[in-house]
C-alpha cells in the first residue's frame, strides 16, 4: 500500500500544534498544550518534567492510544489522526513498540510467547520467531527464562521481556513510559544499556518519559515539559546531565 503521506526519510515522529484537553470550561486541564516536535529516526530522547506535566499524555497521543483535542501527530510521516481504529492498531503492530512502567506482560503467556507476541500477530513463521527471540534473549540476559510465566520473573526481567517485545518487530519507534520507575539502580542500568544497544545497533528510535536522572544522563536529547508545553528542548552528549532538567518549575 502506498500512502501519499509516507515519505522515505520522514522523521520518526512529528507533532504539529498538538493539544489534549481533559474536561471543559473552568475545570479544563490542558494536559498537552500546543506541542510541536520533530524527532528523527534513531534518536534517543528523554521526556522529562514535573509530575502532571503531560509526559504520559504526549506519548499516548504519539502512539495513537488516545485522540488529540486538536493538532496533528505523524509517525513515519503518516497522519495518525486520519487513521481508522484498525489502521491505527496495524500501525502500532508494525511500527511502534510500547514499554510501560509495570504489568506490561500477558500473565498467561510465557516470557518467550510474550516477546514473540507481535511477531505472531504479524504471521512470522515459528522458526524465524524463535530464532529472533532466542538471539535477543541471549543478548539481554534472559537466556533460560523463556518458558517462565511473568509471575515467576523479577521486575527487571519482566521489563527486559517487555523491551524485547517492543523492539523485536523492528519498529520505527519505541515509546517507554517510565520503564525504570519500578527497578533498582542495577536493573535500571541493565535495561538502559540494552535499550542504548538496540538504539545503536538497530537504529530504533526511543522516546522515554522519565523522572530518572540515569535515564536522562544516557539520553542524547532532553525535552522538558511544564504544564503541557515544551519548556526546553536540547541535544546533549550521552553521559552528561544539564542542570536545568531537575530545576523547579519556572526557574529555567
Amino acid at each position, binding site marked *: 500500500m502506498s500512502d501519499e503521506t509516507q515519505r522515505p526519510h520522514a522523521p520518526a515522529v512529528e507533532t504539529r500544534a498538538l493539544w489534549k484537553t481533559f474536561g471543559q470550561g473552568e475545570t479544563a486541564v490542558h494536559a498537552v498544550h500546543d506541542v510541536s516536535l520533530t524527532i528523527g529516526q534513531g534518536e534517543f530522547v528523554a521526556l522529562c518534567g514535573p509530575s502532571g506535566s503531560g509526559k504520559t*499524555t504526549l506519548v*499516548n497521543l504519539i*502512539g495513537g*492510544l*488516545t485522540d488529540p483535542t486538536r493538532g496533528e501527530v505523524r509517525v513515519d510521516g503518516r497522519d495518525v489522526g486520519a487513521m481508522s*481504529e*484498525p489502521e*491505527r*492498531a*496495524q*500501525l*502500532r*503492530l*508494525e511500527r*511502534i513498540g*510500547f514499554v*510501560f512502567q509495570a*504489568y*506490561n*506482560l*500477558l*500473565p*498467561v*503467556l510465557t516470557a518467550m510467547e510474550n516477546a514473540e*507476541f*507481535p511477531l*505472531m*500477530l504479524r*504471521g512470522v513463521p515459528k522458526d524465524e520467531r524463535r530464532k529472533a527471540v532466542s538471539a535477543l534473549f541471549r543478548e539481554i540476559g534472559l537466556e533460560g527464562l523463556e518458558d517462565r510465566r511473568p509471575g515467576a520473573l523479577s521486575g527487571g526481567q519482566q521489563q527486559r521481556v517487555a523491551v524485547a*517485545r517492543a523492539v523485536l518487530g523492528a519498529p520505527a519507534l519505541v515509546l517507554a*513510559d517510565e520503564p525504570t520507575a519500578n527497578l533498582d539502580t542495577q536493573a535500571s542500568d541493565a535495561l538502559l544499556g540494552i535499550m542504548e544497544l538496540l538504539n545503536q545497533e538497530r537504529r530504533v528510535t526511543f522516546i522515554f518519559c522519565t523522572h530518572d536522572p540515569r535515564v536522562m544522563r544516557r539520553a542524547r536529547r532532553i525535552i522538558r515539559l511544564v504544564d503541557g508545553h515544551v519548556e526546553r528542548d536540547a541535544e546533549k552528549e550521552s553521559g552528561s546531565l544539564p542542570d536545568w532538567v531537575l530545576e523547579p518549575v519556572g526557574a529555567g
Partner: protein
Amino acid sequence: MMERWLLIGRIALRNLRRQLRRSLLTASAMVLGVGLLMFVRALEGGAHLMYVDTATRMGTGHVSMEHPDYMGSQDLADRIAARDLALLLEAVATSVPPGELVALFPQVNVGGLAQSATSSVPVRISGVDPALESGVSFFAQQVVEGRYLEPGDRLEAVVGIGVAERLRLELGSRLVLMAAGAQGDLESQLVLVTGIFRTGIPEVDRGVVHLPLPTAREWLELGGDVTSVSVILASDQRTGSVAEAVRGRLTEEGVAGDRLAVRPWWEAMPDLYAGLRADAVQTYIMLLVLLAIVALAVVNSILMAVLNRTREFGVLRALGLNRRAVGAMVLVEGVFLTLASGLVGMLLGLALSMGVFGDGVDISFIFGGELAFAGSVMEPVIQPAVLAGDVVAILTIVIAIGILATLYPAWHATRIEPAEAMKTDE
C-alpha cells in the same frame, strides 16, 4: 491471519484456566441447568410418547382414513364405501415399508344410545375386528372383568366400567344399542356384556361400547362399508411420511380428497396434539427462565473477568490488536465456556435419561392413580425418551446463551480505551 486467531483462542482458553475456580463455578451452573432441561424434557417426551401410543391404539391409529366430512358430521352418510375400502387397503399395503406396519384395521364408529332394563346412556359405539386389532388394541389390555372381543364373537359386547355402573350391567347382562343406520332409520341391536374395561379416562369409561365389526355392519345395514380405517406403525417417527405416501397413492387412484381424507394422528386428534404442544412449550418456558438466570451468572462471570483485566486489554491494544480482535477474545472465552459446559450438561441429561433412570421413573407417588390427558392416558412409570428435536432445540439454546451472555462483556472489552486502561492496576 490464521495464526492471529489461534493466538487469540489460546489466550482465551488460558485465561479460563487461570480463573479456574470462577470458570468451574460458572460451568457447573450451566451443566446443572442444561442437564435438568434435558432430563425434564426427556421425561416429558417419554410421557408424550405414551399418550400418543395409547391414543393411537384406542382406535385412531398413527394414520387414520375417513370420509373427509365424517370428522365433523359423525354421520354414517359420510362413510367409506366398500370399493374405496379395497383401494385403500391396497394403497396402505404398497406404501408402508415392510416391518413398519403393525396393524391395519377398519372400524365402524357411530354415536348412539345404550339401554338396559333400568336406564339408558349416550355412547360411542365401535364395531371392531378383534382379529385385526389383536395385540395392539388398548381396550383389550384394560379389561377388568370378563374378556375382550374375540374372533368369532357375534352378539358379544365390551363396555366401559362407567357404562356398566350406570346401566347396572354385569357380565352376561343384556344391552340394547340404538343408532341411526345407513338408511337414516333408527335401528336397534341386542348384545350381551362379555367384558368390562377401565381405561382411567372418564369420558371413555362412561361412554364407549365395542361390538364385533360384522355385527355392527349388519345392524346398521352398511354392507361392506366402514367409517374409518386406522394404521398402527412400529414407530411414530414414520407417521408423517406414511400419511403422505398413502395420500399420494390414493390421489393417483382418484379417491383422495372428495371421498377419503388421510390424516396423521395430530390432525385426527387436534386436541391431543395441541395439549402436548402446550405442555412442551410450558416446560421450555419454565426451563428457559431457569436458563436465563444461568445466563445472567455467565454474563456476570465473564464481565468480571473483563473488568479484572482492564489493563491487560490496554496492553493488547497497545501491542496492535484492534477492537474487534479484543472483543473476539472475550467472545471465544465466553462461548467456549458455555458451549463446553452446555455439552457436558447435555451429557448429564442423557446419562440421567438413559442410564440412571433408564428403567423408567415411577411418578405414581405424585399423582396416585391414572393420568388422563386430552383424551389419552398413560401409565405412572415414565420411560424417559430423548427426542432428536429436543437435542437440537437444547443445543440451539446453549449456543444462543453462549453468544448472548458474552456479547455484552465482549462489547465492553472493545470499549476499553487503552490510554485509560493503562492507568489502572488491574
